[in-house]
């Protein structure tokens, strides 16, 4: 079958390309229904990834957050019409110690190869997770981002000490929102405090115990553990602030991506015996856990719905461009595409 793939060829320029796929392969065929734009996609779209990365990776279809419905399974294991979330990480080997998202041989959609902006997506059988019928599709569109927080929390849970009276979350953006919401859901008796820069964004965090602007943190405040969800240049300040406020032997999870290396106050990391846990992307098991979380706690979905910035019907390349441009001027929430191209 001739499949249309909508690839970014240079900054702000998309073209339709065609690739031939056989239905009689090992792949399950999924029609994307709702997709969501990630900051990483925007770095490619606007060309801020740097010349070398751009010339190495483009042309490439963007988007690694999305859901769809199964339209064809050569083995008949998935019923046509089954709603699924698509897993962008694509491993080519298994390792008993190293998780699939840390294997150097794994490929990632819209980073190492074509993302979900296609007429149909051909996926390996283990790269889709059924959603059930109770998940709102607009929230479903950015489940992948929720799995990032879920993955980091489960990693943290295995590696940190057991005293979890107070969590700090740095970052008042989408990831900060998701991480603090899951912490508050999974650790009911713990106190969750969010630290951010922008008052109107912090106003969205109604479910946490306290919020502080980063220049107004009480000096005697202390945390058992912390999550950095800032990224970019700001992650340096966030990490060093965490080092200042975290109690000895606390754990700090770093989730924010920075293009440049950052300076860290290692003296205090050593003196306090802080554990730093790096966390990136997610794997199938995190998708399963996240779908379960959304089904087990219907109320959490209501909070996630408030994170939907806009839902945009996409029927043409012009619509894709308009939606990416709109997302660039949106300061809060996720931009969702209803994929009708």
């Amino acid at each position, binding site marked *: 079958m001739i499949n249309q793939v909508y690839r970014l060829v240079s900054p702000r320029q998309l073209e339709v390309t*065609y690739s031939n796929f056989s239905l009689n392969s090992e792949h399950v065929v999924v029609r994307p229904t709702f997709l969501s734009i990630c900051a990483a996609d925007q770095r490619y779209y606007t060309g801020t990834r740097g010349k070398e990365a751009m010339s190495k990776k483009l042309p490439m279809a963007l988007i690694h957050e999305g859901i769809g419905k199964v339209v064809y399974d050569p083995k008949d294991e998935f019923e046509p019409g089954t709603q699924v979330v698509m897993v962008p990480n694509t491993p080519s080997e298994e390792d008993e110690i190293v998780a699939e998202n840390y294997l150097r041989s794994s490929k990632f959609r819209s980073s190492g190869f074509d993302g979900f902006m296609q*007429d149909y997506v051909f996926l390996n059988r283990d790269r889709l997770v059924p959603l059930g019928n109770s998940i709102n599709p607009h929230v479903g569109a950015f489940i992948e981002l929720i799995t990032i927080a879920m993955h980091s929390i489960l990693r943290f849970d295995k590696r940190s000490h057991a005293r979890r009276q107070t969590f700090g979350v740095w970052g008042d953006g989408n990831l900060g929102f998701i991480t603090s919401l899951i912490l508050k859901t999974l650790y009911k008796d713990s106190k969750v405090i969010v630290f951010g820069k922008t008052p109107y964004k912090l106003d969205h965090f109604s479910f946490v115990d306290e919020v502080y602007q980063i220049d107004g943190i009480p000096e005697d405040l202390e945390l058992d553990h912390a999550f950095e969800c800032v990224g970019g240049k700001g992650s340096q300040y966030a990490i060093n602030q965490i080092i200042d406020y975290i109690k000895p032997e606390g754990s700090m999870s770093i989730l924010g991506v920075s293009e440049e290396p950052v300076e860290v106050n290692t003296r205090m990391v050593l003196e306090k015996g802080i554990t730093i846990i790096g966390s990136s992307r997610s794997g199938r098991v995190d998708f399963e856990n996240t779908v379960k979380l959304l089904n087990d706690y219907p109320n959490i979905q209501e909070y996630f719905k408030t994170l939907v910035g806009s839902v945009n019907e996409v029927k043409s390349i012009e619509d894709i461009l308009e939606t990416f441009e709109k997302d660039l001027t949106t300061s809060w929430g996720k931009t969702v595409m209803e994929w009708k191209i």
Partner: protein
Amino acid sequence: MIYAEILAGGKGTRMGNINMPKQFITIDGTPIIIHTIEKFILNDRFEKILIVSPKEWINYTKDIIKKHIGENDRLVVVEGGSDRNESIMSGIHYIEKEFGIEDDDVIVTHDSVRPFLTHRIIEENIDEVLKHGAVDTAIEAVDTILQSKDGEIIDNIPIRDTMFQGQTPQSFHINTLVNHYNALSGDEKTILTDACKICALKGENVKIVKGELFNIKITTPYDLKVAKAILQERISK
């Protein structure tokens, strides 16, 4: 019920000296008609997908379906008629005989040699034919269209903004199409080769669904070259 009908009745006289109909020519190792059928299989709204073939090519069509797609109980190969409309009617007669025709039944017909159609085009054909009696797929005319009866002197140059180029799918409310077609005289049937035109002449509102420039019909050696080129475009990484 929603049916699909893939029209593969042609024998490819414009393709030059080849010994099989053009729909069987391969692009990237797969016959064009298989590429087209696969796009329809991926839409689960179709109850049955009929493939209309010249009688002598029915076995061949079944063989390549088996080879490339395998068993699929939604696919049926039906013998075509003497021209395009008669072929559409052959499919409809098959539906009538096997399942009976209900008043809300619709059919999406498509050229077997247009393998580049998209999910959107099929979906919008279905959505619109459920609301209108007939649907045509078209793109805005790129070139200026000239009208000339003798091919020598221009009679008229219509305003380009009002001109569209017809593609397929063409979709129909089955009973509406059958009634209009049966009301034509034998001569009219010979002249009116386009089923949407029949509906339009009989006063039906024929809804336009936006096609795509790349939804080309592969009928000449040039088209084949274009189709192969755009598909085999290998992007260097």
